[in-house]
């Protein structure tokens, strides 16, 4: 396991390094001045610009520029936004937590609902409930996420008026945005209406989380169903059944733990799909996260922000993938053996 962990971590570091090269080269690919794209300081401020030109090694070779850039990225100096003139890295932390709150909640919902539904479909294979679950999951897998968001808004917010349309919370509550996560903010605030504020925030969360959860949920249903069906055909299940174990016990103790193996491996992939959808969903629901910030950055040609969001989102996806793989290898040693045999 140690060997495997080291290998994966080594690979993660190399990938992150390659990512930083990609981000660095973007400074030259974006229209405009590379130094401005990198730091957010415009040429209209000649004094500061010249200072930075020397500090960032722009009078030297490109290799030196890159090492300089890399050390700045690592130390948390990601330049400043071209529009607001605020440091990107500081703003990023708040937006990052907001995005993380949304995506983790969606992933949790997808996991908690998708796995049981998948098992149910597998147990009742070829019966009505199986067909309904599979049919719904196949069709909702094809719904474009922005249309789904619009449909939900039309149905639940406009027609039925159950839920608010956009935003994180009703501005009347006047909650200071400190961590980025609205639930945590309310928890740590000293407002007198904590409970009603929490309820209001939860109502704002329902629609975006539901929209985001649908896609990974349907994928998890399909994967869980296939995996469970495969496990149920194994000999050890038949043997357990022959020994007279009850069906729920068999499913819960013998089938499910083994069926979870491919499901766990899928979580990483699902997370990157989820992040794609988060970008769109945040833009629709006005959620102040990284996704809507990236879109705004592209509209406003705010290159330091675009670069920062790319680094954060890609880094997050890579990290989650490695963590999932490590957990997978730790939880299911038989996979580890296969991995060793291959190399």
């Amino acid at each position: 396991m140690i060997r495997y962990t080291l290998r994966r971590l080594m690979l993660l570091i190399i990938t992150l390094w390659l990512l930083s090269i990609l981000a660095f080269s973007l400074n030259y690919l974006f229209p405009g001045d590379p130094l401005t794209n990198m730091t957010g300081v415009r040429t209209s401020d000649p004094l500061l610009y010249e200072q930075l030109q020397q500090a960032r090694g722009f009078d030297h070779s490109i290799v030196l520029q890159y090492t300089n850039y890399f050390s700045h990225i690592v130390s948390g100096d990601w330049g400043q936004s071209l529009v607001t003139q605020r440091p990107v890295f500081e703003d990023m932390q708040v937006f990052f937590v907001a995005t993380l709150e949304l995506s983790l909640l969606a992933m949790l919902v997808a996991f908690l609902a998708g796995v049981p539904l998948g098992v149910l479909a597998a147990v009742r294979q070829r019966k009505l409930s199986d067909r309904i679950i599979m049919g719904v999951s196949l069709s909702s897998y094809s719904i474009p996420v922005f249309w789904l968001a619009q449909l939900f808004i039309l149905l639940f917010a406009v027609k039925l008026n159950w839920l608010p349309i956009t935003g994180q919370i009703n501005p009347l509550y006047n909650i200071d945005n400190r961590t980025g996560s609205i639930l945590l903010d309310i928890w740590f605030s000293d407002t007198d209406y904590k409970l009603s504020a929490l309820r209001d925030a939860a109502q704002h969360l329902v629609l975006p989380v539901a929209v985001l959860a649908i896609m990974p949920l349907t994928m998890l249903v399909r994967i869980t169903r296939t995996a469970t069906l495969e496990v149920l055909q194994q000999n050890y299940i038949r043997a357990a059944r022959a020994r007279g174990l009850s069906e729920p016990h068999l499913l819960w103790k013998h089938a499910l733990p083994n069926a979870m193996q491919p499901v766990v491996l899928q979580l990483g992939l699902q997370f990157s799909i989820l992040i794609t959808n988060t970008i769109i969903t945040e833009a629709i629901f006005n959620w102040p996260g990284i996704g809507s910030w990236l879109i705004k950055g592209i509209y406003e040609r705010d290159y330091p922000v675009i670069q920062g969001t790319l680094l954060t989102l890609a880094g997050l996806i890579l990290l989650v993938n490695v963590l999932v793989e490590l957990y997978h290898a730790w939880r299911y040693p038989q996979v580890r053996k296969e991995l060793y045999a291959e190399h």
Partner: protein
Amino acid sequence: MQVWINFQSNPFALSALYCFGFITLMMILAPVLSPFDANQQFSDIISLPPSWDDDGKMRYFFGTDDLGRDMLSRIMHGARYSLGYPILIVLFAGIIGTALGAGAGMTRGLKSSTLNHLLDVLLSIPSLLLALIIIAILGPSLENVVIALSLVLIPQFIHAVRNAVHDEIYKDYVVAAKLNGCSTWYILTRVILPNITTVIVMQTTLALSTAILDIAALGFLGLGVQPPAPEWGTMLARSLDQVYLSPWLMILPGLALFLTVFSINVIGDSLRAAIQERIRNS
């Protein structure tokens, strides 16, 4: 042939195929069939509901939008952007990606594993995020969206084909062909390629639905096809302000998008099942 028989025996697959064929036909015949031009405005008939509504008119079958443009014509013409361009993109990316992937699969050693790691980095970034970054470099327009999506899809093809070739190349039948003295080109095209068609077909349908969804998402975000072009995603973005008064502006283009992606996904799924069935039977 066997695949087609298997495919045909599945009613869902067949209806999905008909649905896809119908949409494609509409797209090709849009200039002939559509009642009006996509951007023709009828300023006296604004926000007319679809014909099945009490206030609707048969002449404007799907109603009109807030500028008095006929929705049916717009959706038919829009298929060219939302389905036609993705097909072109996937064909282009597929040919280049398959060629490069096959080449990469035949090589071994450090060069090949470096490429693999590079592709892993590139593929770990979601396709839409990568397309957004490329759009940020090039600026939003139809041509740039086509370039961006092709660039995004090529690595996916390379990765899939490379892995498939890599899996086959050590199998006995390939080794036998090699021992027979066949040239590398012959081994690649006549020995390996027929055995990885499943992978290529699957990757193509997957790439097609990705391309359709991404082009619509970019249009929706205002970073892809620019209005007044009747692209479905762009139409959806416009409908956001009108959803109170005229919900059909949002439902109809979305439905078209959904049906297209859905039929492609069902075709892809059933095709894989049919090919697997054939492999199992043979």
